[in-house]
């Protein structure tokens, strides 16, 4: 047991120091769980006023490291020095009291309480036994003003967008006088515009001397805010670099331990003229209007656009998850009458939702049960009893085909990584012999290596003649994988672009509602 344990609440009265001073340093940190070495000899230090990114594939030890910094875990060995004093945080509360705050990927706000009540939860200003509502509102307003965001302190959190919730979390951290802020995948569900706002706030925080630990899978956007980057691989420390002195390719190759020539696989499929899926005049009031598009055999069609532009809504409606008010859908020349997901599945459509855990998987159930869930008829007899031989065979086939990493087919899917979970969902639809697969943000929260595998699978599906629609907010992904791109803006398709002849700028132009750029059609 290290000697530097906390002596109840004594905080050194250090003056605000200059930017560049080391705020937090972790030396030779190891963390072992019975049978697993989660971290071995990891170094990490954070300076005042810098954004320090931690990169690594899923399972590289990022979360464990963050949990050690935020006091959830105590390291098995190694030293934590915070503001010049060796520390060991016994609990997240203790770390928080010392000025280390974490903003989780899944936001931890209470939807039914107001913004102000959330910021000061369990620390409400009081007047006797009662909450001092005036002071509560005023204090919250001050915090929000510091961030420069326009959110009413009295609004209910459930009325806010994800981006606004994040701002509230940051405001809460600031109200705790946080000097170290850990952000876990802060942009994963933000639109481009919201990301801009977040980055502006991050710049302001840097200027005020806060040190930010930044975790993200989106390496492309790091250049704008990140000062230094530390790479972890398999629980080991790889390197720390100034971001300016490195580049994305180098970071990626360090993360995966090999050089990744390409982020996207070579496309082998070629679009034909043969139309698989056609939509005419699809309308759902309040969500989208007059959506027309054609998906051709061998093609990957992208749906690009800002969040809430109607991409997911169109996909859900085609799949029968939400009702259409008007419009017609034809699959291989046949007009479909889809009233529920069951109809859509029977017709050969498949939708891989953006939220795997909430909508894609029965997480308590094992791999094989999830894989066969959409096609139980194939693995059961006419009495409705499951044929476990066929069942096991089907599961094994797709586990091998998609190289799903699982100890066994009976492993509950919640214990698998995001990439493998996504592959199980793909396997489910392949087993169903689906003719058209709609991927909604298929690589969100998935590590680089697994992303590549998912892209390869998409290409192979297209090559086999299966129609593939890719909904994605990551423009490089849309540009890297599709043949044509339908750009959505406020519930309409603003334009359909040939991928080979377009650019991020042009897509953004359409997505923000400016219509065709220049003379281009």
């Amino acid at each position, binding site marked *: 047991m290290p000697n530097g344990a906390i002596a109840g609440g004594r905080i050194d009265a250090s003056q605000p120091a200059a930017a560049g001073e080391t705020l937090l340093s972790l030396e030779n940190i190891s963390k072992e*769980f019975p049978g697993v070495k989660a971290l071995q000899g990891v170094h990490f230090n954070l300076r005042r006023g810098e954004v320090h990114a931690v990169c690594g594939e899923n399972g590289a030890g990022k979360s464990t490291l963050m949990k050690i910094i935020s006091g959830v875990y105590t390291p098995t060995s190694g030293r934590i020095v915070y503001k010049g004093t060796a520390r060991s945080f016994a609990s997240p509360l203790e770390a928080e009291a010392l000025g280390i705050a974490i903003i989780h990927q899944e936001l931890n706000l209470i939807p039914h309480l107001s913004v102000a009540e959330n910021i000061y939860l369990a620390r409400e200003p009081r007047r006797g036994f009662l909450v001092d509502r005036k002071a509560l509102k005023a204090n919250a307003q001050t915090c929000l003003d510091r961030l420069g965001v326009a959110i009413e302190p009295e609004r209910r959190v459930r009325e806010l967008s994800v981006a606004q919730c994040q701002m509230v979390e940051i405001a809460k951290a600031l109200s705790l006088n946080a000097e170290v802020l850990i952000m876990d995948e802060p942009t994963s569900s933000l639109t481009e515009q919201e990301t801009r706002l977040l980055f502006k706030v991050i710049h302001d925080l840097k200027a005020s001397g806060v040190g930010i630990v930044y975790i993200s899978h989106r390496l492309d956007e790091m250049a704008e805010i990140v000062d230094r980057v530390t790479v972890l691989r398999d629980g080991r420390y790889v390197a720390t670099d100034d971001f300016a002195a490195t580049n994305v390719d180098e970071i990626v190759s360090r993360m995966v331990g090999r050089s990744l020539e390409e982020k996207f696989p070579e496309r082998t499929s070629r679009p034909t003229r043969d139309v698989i899926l056609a939509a005419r005049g699809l309308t759902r009031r309040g969500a989208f209007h007059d959506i027309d598009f054609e998906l051709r055999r061998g093609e990957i069609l992208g749906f690009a656009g800002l969040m809430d532009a109607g991409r997911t809504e169109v996909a859900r409606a085609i799949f029968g998850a939400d009702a259409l008010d008007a419009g017609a859908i034809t699959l291989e020349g046949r007009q479909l009458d889809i009233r529920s997901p069951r109809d859509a*599945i029977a017709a050969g459509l498949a939708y891989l939702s953006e939220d795997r855990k909430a909508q894609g998987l029965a997480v308590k159930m094992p791999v094989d049960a999830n894989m066969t869930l959409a096609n139980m008829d194939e693995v059961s007899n006419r009495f409705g009893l499951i044929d476990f031989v066929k069942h096991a065979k089907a599961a094994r086939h797709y586990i091998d085909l998609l190289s799903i990493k699982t100890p066994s087919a009976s492993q509950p899917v919640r214990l698998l990584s995001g990439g493998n979970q996504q592959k199980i969902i793909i396997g489910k639809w392949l087993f169903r012999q689906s003719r058209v697969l709609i991927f909604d943000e298929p690589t969100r929260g998935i590590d680089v290596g697994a992303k590549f595998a998912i892209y390869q699978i998409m290409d192979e599906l297209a090559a086999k003649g299966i129609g593939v629609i890719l909904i994605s907010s990551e423009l490089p992904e849309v540009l890297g994988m599709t043949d044509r791109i339908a750009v959505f803006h406020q519930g309409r398709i603003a334009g359909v672009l040939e991928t080979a002849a377009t650019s991020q700028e042009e897509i953004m132009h359409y997505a923000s509602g400016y219509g065709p750029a220049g003379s281009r059609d």
Partner: protein
Amino acid sequence: MTMTVATPPSPARGRLTDRQKDIVQKFAALGSLLVLIVVFSLTSNAFFTVNNGMTIALQVTSIALLGIGATCVIITGGIDLSVGSVLALSGVVAALAVKELGLAVPVAMMLGILTGAFCGLINGILVTRMRLPPFIATLGMMLIARGVALQITGARAVSGLGESFGVLGNGALFRIVTIGDDGFPTVVFPGIPYPVILMVVIALAVSLMLNRSVLGRHIYAVGSNAEAARLSGVNVAGVTRFTYVLSGSLAGLTGCVLMSRLVTAQPNEGVMYELDAIASAVIGGTSLIGGVGTMSGTFIGSFVIGILRNGLNMNGVSAFTQQIIIGLVILLTVWIDQLRNRR
């Protein structure tokens, strides 16, 4: 504050697969069942006898039958509070059908079971179509069914049902009776009561349904993630309704069995039985969040409750103390379950 105390639970602790955990849970429940049997055998001479064994089995049938239905409903993430009242209504309907309408006993009992199924169907429609929380929907049904049972009987017991009404509840298979030298009959083997046979057959059938059939798979899928199940083409509303109909039908059957045993239909029968049913499922490892539960677990759970009652009775423990002990057992088992699942 010491570091040891503050060390958080490591996620690596208890690295058992769910299948292993399931087995551990079963053995834990089974183990406590055995402990109960040993303790009661030592404290009471009359406990460990064939006769008492059959008595316990008979007593357990109502808990187990209701527990089977409760388990299916709870696996989908629901709850059924109405079974105690529904069994009273069903039993009363069967009795009135015999007495007032002069129907044959099997037909009347079928009518009773259908009454239960109908109540279950209404529960299912309230939950799936009108989107009421299961707790509220079945709470309403609990009051309504009890009220109807009291109304149609004028709150009086229905008796004078004839001997044949008592066969289902009191008859037994393989009963061996010899006439002694003194001319009095001696019971060599009390036989296996019909309700016990019914319970075993139904438990096996539902177990087969849950583990081996597509419907069972869908029940687990709905409880594990209803939205994912819907987007995989599972008829979520249909599956959910089925579990309530099953629970209602089993409540109807239980009502017929209980009333038959007394050869009298009591509109006040079965008060709080729904809680025994839920308790047996929970002791057997069914998760109230849904997605988890087994027939074997519920079966053991209902025997734990039944044996506790019987054994405590034999040891002259008062009914009040019994309630306290059973309450503690429920808290203890679920707490152990929580400890085991903590990660």
